């Protein structure tokens, strides 16, 4: 449902508010109730919750896209990324120490960027839980958290990538990098053909979240992820 607001501008214009779910669900109520009780019981403070909420809302894959695009056009920056990715992130405005001064328990300040080549493709996973480079990519997509993806990718990487629509030729080696409690990974894909002379900003637009996880490849004209991950119990037969 949408509302039309007339903000007293004498009819010179009207604003259309974005539609919103206009009912209070038990889930909304549950989240608030659990949080309030946790704060009252001293499990954490309201101030901490506000700080982490603001941080969570501030991170997203755009930062990773900027890092990749900059690395593509600036070899010196790429070298710094490969040498010390956390330090290089500061050059694009990402501080892994946020929001606590020492990162979060889920975002250890240790990042390795995995550089693809025409014959080597990386893809990341966390078989243990759902570790993810949140300062650069934001919150992980739900499929990344599923046991379906986590269990099957390490067993049948080529087949699982095919389920994402990424069919790699046999001569391309696939390397699955398993995140862990001490290290985060992100993929630096190969710059695609047809992007010569593109600006950094334009390049960043085709570096989607899935490209940096490794379940898609950047290509001109593709600026959004679609992820029709299957729930099949077996890999597709190819």
């Amino acid at each position, binding site marked *: 449902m949408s509302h039309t607001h007339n903000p007293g501008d004498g009819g010179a214009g009207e604003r259309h508010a974005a539609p919103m779910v206009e009912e*209070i669900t038990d889930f909304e*109520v549950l*989240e608030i109730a*659990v949080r309030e009780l946790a704060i009252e019981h001293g499990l*954490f403070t309201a101030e901490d919750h506000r700080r*982490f*909420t603001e941080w969570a*809302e501030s991170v997203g894959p755009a930062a990773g896209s900027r890092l990749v695009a900059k690395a593509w056009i600036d070899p010196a920056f790429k070298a710094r990324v490969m040498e010390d990715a956390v330090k290089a992130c500061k050059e694009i405005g990402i501080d892994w120490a946020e929001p606590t001064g020492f990162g979060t328990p889920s975002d250890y300040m240790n990042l390795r960027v995995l550089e693809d080549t025409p014959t080597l493709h990386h893809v990341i996973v966390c*078989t243990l839980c759902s570790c993810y480079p949140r300062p650069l990519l934001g919150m992980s997509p739900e499929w990344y958290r599923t046991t379906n993806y986590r269990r099957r990718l390490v067993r049948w990487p080529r087949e699982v990538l095919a389920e994402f629509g990424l069919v790699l030729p046999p001569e391309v080696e696939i390397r699955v990098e398993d995140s862990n409690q001490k290290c985060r990974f992100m993929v630096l894909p190969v710059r695609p053909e047809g992007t010569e002379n593109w600006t950094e900003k334009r390049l960043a637009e085709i570096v989607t979240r899935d490209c940096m996880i490794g379940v898609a490849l950047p290509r001109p004209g593709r600026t959004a992820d679609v992820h029709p991950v299957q729930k099949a119990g077996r890999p597709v037969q190819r």
Partner: protein
Amino acid sequence: MSVKSDVDPGRIALLETMRNTEKTWDTLAPQYGVTNPDPPWKTSLVAMCDCLDVSGALPGLERRHAEDELADSVYRDVPAPERQLLALAHIMLGRGLISEDDLASRMRAVRSRLETA
């Protein structure tokens, strides 16, 4: 891979009352023409998990292992992120971090507050 946790997989009456409401975001959002893939409370939920981790009240790895178990059993038919929320409440109740009576009471109070706003 999934690691065995100490979570109690028994059903919790209060949370069971919520599973069949058909009020999950993936159902409601299209009805209202909302395209945001996540409900407004999702970020707050993520922050709550981070806070519990930082404070040591509920370490993230233990929560994730328990969440995996519950996602594959008790809340298998509930979509995300509602499943994550129910699992968190389930884990906190199971560990005695909050009580079911307190939670039920607080939920009534919160709903009343929101409905009169």
